[in-house]
């Protein structure tokens, strides 16, 4: 019961966080702002996935979270590399 309540609250906070990330994505103003917002969205998604796992008492969501952590940052890295060098693989 308590757990369900906490999970719901967790969902609410993660949802709010996602919306805030979205807002930053819209606002910018610069590309790095948006990239950092996207990166944060990735991380929040990881948390959300774990939360969903707890919610359903299921571990099938775990790999998604793990994979986001393993490969997600490659997006951020390549976006930044683009801003820095244009040529991301050189």
């Amino acid at each position: 019961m308590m757990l369900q309540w906490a999970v719901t609250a967790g969902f609410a906070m993660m949802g709010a966080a996602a919306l805030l990330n979205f807002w930053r994505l819209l606002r910018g103003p610069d590309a790095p702002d948006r990239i950092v917002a996207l990166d944060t969205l990735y991380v929040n998604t990881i948390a959300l996935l774990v939360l969903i796992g707890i919610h359903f008492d299921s571990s099938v969501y775990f790999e998604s979270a793990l994979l986001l952590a393993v490969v997600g940052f490659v997006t951020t890295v390549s976006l930044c590399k683009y801003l820095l060098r244009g040529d991301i693989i050189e």
Partner: protein
Amino acid sequence: MSLVLILLLPIVGALLPPLAARLGRDAAPAAAAALTGGALALLLGLAPSLDEPAALSVPWVPTLGLEFALRLDGLGFLFSLLILGIGLLMILYARYYLPKSDYLGRFYGLLLLFQGAMLGVVLADNLLLLVVFWELTSLSSFLLIGYNIGSGESRRGARVALAVTGAGGLALLAGFLMLGHMAGTYRIGELLGMGETIRAHPWYMPMLLLVLTGAFTKSAQFPFHFWLPGAMAAPTPVSAYLHSATMVKAGVFLLARLFPVLSGTDAWFFIVGTVGLVTLLYAAYVALFQHDLKGLLAYSTVSHLGLITLLFGIGTPLGAVAGIFHVINHAIFKASLFMAAGIIDHETGSRDMRRINGLWNYMPHTALLAMVAAASMAGVPLLNGFLSKEMFFAETVHLEQLGVAGWILPALATLAGVFAVAYSVRFIHDVFFNGEPVDLPKMPPHEPPRWMRIPIEVLVTLCIVVGLFPGFMVKPLLDAAALGVVGALPDYDLVLWHGLSPPLAMSAIALVGGILVYAVRRYVFAVHDRFPLPEGSDVFERALSRAMAGAEILRASSDDGRLRRYIALVFVSAVVLAAAPFLLRGGGLGPLPLTDADPLVLIATFMLVGGALAAVFMHQRRLLAIIWLGVVGLVVTLTFVHFSAPDLALTQITVEVVSTVLLLLALFFLPGGQREHEPHGRRAFDAMLAALVGLGAAALALGVLTRPYKSIAGFYFANAKPVGGGDNVVNVILVDFRGFDTLGEITVLAIAATGIYAMLRGLRLDLPATDSAGRPWCGERHPLFLAVLSRPLLPLALLVSIYLLLRGHNAPGGGFIAGLVAGTALILQYLANGIEWTQARLRLRYFRVAGTGLIIAALTGLAAVAAGRPYLTSGLLHLNLPLIGELELASAMAFDLGVFFAVLGVVIIVLAHLGRLSRQQVRTPPANPEEVH
């Protein structure tokens, strides 16, 4: 049997002259003559059995009703005789006519081809077979008219001829198809007895028009006559043979052939009669004014064809007999006239009657022959032309259909006779007399070689003999031919003297009037020159070039070469077609209630919609659009997770990352930059179309989602574990139930990689020295922290990849995802350490990896074949090992390993080669786009 040979000798034999031509100049004509002579002999051999027409039929395309059916009746015999007889003479003549330099193989080959085709037309007993040969005559005529390569005149003439006769052929085809359908048979022999049924059929009129169009175009009837003068660009033997004696008679042959079926209606009378009459008159008139010798003969031919057509149009049996008779006579005298004209052309180098004068002094022998033939053409008594013309005049007089206006036809016929006499007189006087030649290219002209005259002599002799002894010479032939046309032979006499009768008077008027007209020719010409008639072929040429220009305009206006229009049309089509059933039948949502949305889905949808829209609004700022795509992809991933698709989520995550890297690699070379404003209207249209398509997709989705369905999925749950050996049903579907799809899918990947590699090879692009805002790039290539941390990350990520690969059969994961993860891990090395560094350590031929993966996957399936099971049948191995315990190995897992390697190889091929693109560039100022084109 000999019937087939008559046809096949020239057709198959057409190959012989080109081959024989290598043996010497005489070889080709000799071969052609031998073949024609052989066919002629066979034909004559069949003459005694005409009462019992020889026939044969071999099925060809039964579905179509097309059969190789031949039948030799009197009409066919007569025409075959003309074709082969005159053909033989023409082969002889042409041997001397054609320039020494000519390669005769082609000419004689085509001539034989034509001859065979023409024989086919007259012998065919199947409507469709007749069309086959009919079009073949058009084609061979086209090729023969164009014989003089390089001459614009012959090229144009050939094309106009082909266009007109080809179009007629199409009409004829349509008409015949209708006729065959109406009769229920395409067999001409059967058809001939069904005249009444056919004439009463509602399709009679359109069918008649189509068939007549075919006949009229071929026989150069007004208004389709104009191709024939143009066809005079052909070598004279061709003009003589095809365009006067034989091919142009195919039209009137058709009128004769189908006379029992089609004639006897008012429509027939008025259409055929009128066309014939107009042609007769018009062409006779125009012929007078031709300065070209062959032009005169050509219009004269048209006019005579009109006469014959008119005779068939009149519709009486006697008219038909007269028509057939005139076919014979015209063929004889006109062929000889053309040959004479050819000799003149050959000897003087000109055909212009204004320059050719007084040839009587140079070639009296030829002149005499030509004069006899011309007299026959004019209808001078004692010659064959007179006889049939008399019959024609008689028919016009006895005609009853026109009632009180009955005098019109004889009057017009006489008028045509006047012109015919006039141009005949001109042919004689203007060429052989009328003073001395003017500026002839060859001077002085000589008599032609002996063998060149012989064909004319033969024909002119025929003119006289037939003229003098018609009953003896042609009556049996004519009777036999007419029998098939009119059923019961009318009572007629072929004698020279019918007594003083209106026809004789008309002949006399024509002769006297014609001479008079020629006498006052200067005035007549002056009047004519004041009112020039439009040249049909010019009109046609102009129309054709206008049509081509119009076609180009139409094509260009429908196709602006822009992708936008193409895509829009696809979507418009999709919207229209997909909406049609709903509009026609009504209907919408199904019975199932919508489930409640939880707030998370609401937020996700909000972000998805917002992200997509933001990508659209910011699409010109490409980097931002890429970021927005990342957002959308992430939310899509979440959607997959939320709706119970962990495998999809895993795939989506990695594909998302790899795609971003890909887009950024491309973005370097395509940075965009300046914002462009497209016209408001265009954007509004696009937005509307986009909205419609989106709406359609949403509606379809909702329509399905609110309906229950019964899927085949139960089978998969039941069999995944016991037979497939895996808990993860999606994976078992991918590698087992529908492993074939997956095999195809990794093939797609491999092909894409091959293609990308091929496209990138040698590609040169400008390297942007600054970013799109004009800032120079940062100097450091490989940020330290990234490089350092990429080292431990590689084995870690590979570990995760292996983990996902091994568990895929039982839990979310599998070859695809694992391959993508491993690929991403390697990409990170490229990103962090650069190509050289990475390549030096990754000693892999990527294509080998991808290809091997593909082979592994494909061969795994073959193992089952070796065991006698269908391809890709999965095997399951239960192992009970010490320490490890029970282990279950499915061969599908080997398949998955293949998938893993294929995906890994492809990802690396694509990204590494794309990354390397910047290294094959030189930093030079942008190339001038004009040079690139």
